[in-house]
């Protein structure tokens, strides 16, 4: 168990370092001289040289990388070219919006996905399974940003049931906050639930055909207990992995949804930074996305070994 966790921790750390290198080199591969972008109007050679000195752009790449790394570890991600604000404080205002949206979406997705998955597995070959399968296929095939557009068109603009765009922080009004987030969260969540449903269904089918479920049935347990306590509990192990991966992907996957609903989150920050060539922000956004994905992945592996004793013994999570 300890060996397995150490190996996973080492692998995650290695991936994290590699990701940092890729981000660093990737931003430097972008066309355009950052000194020119930073200089604004004052483009005299002296001004450019001063900027290069100030930002360390005249140093060798390894030196620049070291500086980038040590600054980032201290929470200093540079200054936005566009707003002049520290990037870290921009992230601090944008991240909570995306996190709240992601957690709401995941909660909706788990409830719908696990529920539908269990129904599809238990009612195998009946109409309920057909409906659940069809809905999951639809969920996989619908472009969610389009669903968002249609929802705004028919639920916000036409009827005024939900606000079409904008965001209210929880600190100002919980009700208003939820009112703004319900629609985007439902739309994101239904998409994710399709994947969860399919996974739950197939794991449940596996679990329902195992000996321990047959034993539980044979000793006269009520079906509800057999399904809930025995089959579902074992199926959830795989579902946890999927949910973890989705959460990691949502940090950036919510980009389009945020764009459509005008939510001032991480996605909007990303898109604005890209279109305005705000290099320090792009760099920070990619770094945060990649590292959160890696960290969540590692956390899922940890969780996995806690839920499933077999992982601890054999050290194999796959």
């Amino acid at each position: 168990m300890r060996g397995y966790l150490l190996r996973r921790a080492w692998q995650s750390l290695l991936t994290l370092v590699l990701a940092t290198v890729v981000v660093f080199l990737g931003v430097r591969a972008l066309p355009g001289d950052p000194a020119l972008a930073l200089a604004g109007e004052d483009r005299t050679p002296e001004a450019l040289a001063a900027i290069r000195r100030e930002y360390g752009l005249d140093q060798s790449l390894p030196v620049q990388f070291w500086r980038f790394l040590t600054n980032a570890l201290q929470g200093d991600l540079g200054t936005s070219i566009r707003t002049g604000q520290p990037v870290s404080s921009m992230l601090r205002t944008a991240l909570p919006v995306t996190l709240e949206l992601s957690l709401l979406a995941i909660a909706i997705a788990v409830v719908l996905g696990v529920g539908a998955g269990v129904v599809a597995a238990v009612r195998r070959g009946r109409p309920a399974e057909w409906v659940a399968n069809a809905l999951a296929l639809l969920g996989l095939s619908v472009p969610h940003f389009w669903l968002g557009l249609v929802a705004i068109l028919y639920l916000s603009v036409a009827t005024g049931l939900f606000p079409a765009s904008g965001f209210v922080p929880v600190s100002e009004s919980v009700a208003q906050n939820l009112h703004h987030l319900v629609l985007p969260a439902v739309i994101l969540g239904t998409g994710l639930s399709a994947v969860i449903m399919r996974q739950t269904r197939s794991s449940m089918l596996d679990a329902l055909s195992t000996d321990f479920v047959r034993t539980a049935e044979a000793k006269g347990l009520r079906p509800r207990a057999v399904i809930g306590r025995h089959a579902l509990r074992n199926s959830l192990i795989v579902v946890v992995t999927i949910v973890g991966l989705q959460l990691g992907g949502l940090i950036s996957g919510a980009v389009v949804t945020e764009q459509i609903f005008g939510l001032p989150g991480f996605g909007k920050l990303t898109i604005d930074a890209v279109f305005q060539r705000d290099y320090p922000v792009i760099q920070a956004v990619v770094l945060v996305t990649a590292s959160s994905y890696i960290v969540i992945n590692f956390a899922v592996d940890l969780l996995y070994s806690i839920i499933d004793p077999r992982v601890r013994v054999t050290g194999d999570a796959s």
Partner: protein
Amino acid sequence: MSVDTALTQVPASAPAEASQGSRVLRRLRRNPLAVVSFCVLTVAVVVAVFAPLLAPYAPEQTDFANTLAPPGTPGHLLGTDDLGRDVLSRIILGSRASLQVAALAVFTALVIGVPLGLVAGYFRAADSVISRLTDLLLAFPFLILAVGFAAIRGASLGNAAVAIGIAQIPGVIRVVRSDALRLKSLDFVAAAVVDGASDLWVLRRHILPNATSVVLVQATVAIPAAILGEAVLSFLGLGIQPPSPSLGTMLANAQQFAARAPWAAVLPGLAIMILALAFNVFGDSLRDALDPKANRR
């Protein structure tokens, strides 16, 4: 696949494959969902190939006397947009672009992912390196990759396709790797090795042909994902550039006048959904036909 059938495949692999192929075809023909989705896909591909001939108007052709005409307007079956461009023509050419991007993306993902997956599954030493690379790629979600790609190389159909393809490589590597691992432990591979076959020979003649079904299924999953990916990128302005028709740019454009002309916002999305749904349904049927045991369970 049981060991017995695997063994019988060694001396006469061609006929065995052929009979498996016809078995799969027979199962597909018996599944109404497979038949319907296959028909939809055939129509879509034919329409895409002959798009310029089939579209009633040139997709960029504006008609300012007929802006925001609703569906059913004579001459404009699905209506027009804010510039009077024919929605049907733009959907036809947009679908063609979607399929082009999807084909190019999945081709990219397979060309890079399949060999890497085979090598990772077959050679232990290469596995850890390739697995780290896969982890690294996964850490950069699709949109971030595509955004970076568009920023460095510019936004275009080809670049969008390559970015989507690169994002799909880890998925291909994973399934091919695990199938190669499984096949490697089977007796017919051991027999080939004992017989003195080189690693390259075993990979090409024994592992790759047997991994085809996994690759096929992965491709049918990847195509609809790529279609949705193209729509997202073009919607954000990072894919196909206007005025070239793309289902994603049509949606982005329609956002401005959606309340007055909902058809311009609804129809391109429906087209994306039908394309993706047909591929997903066919992919599911194909998986069931290739592995009926997984279905019966």
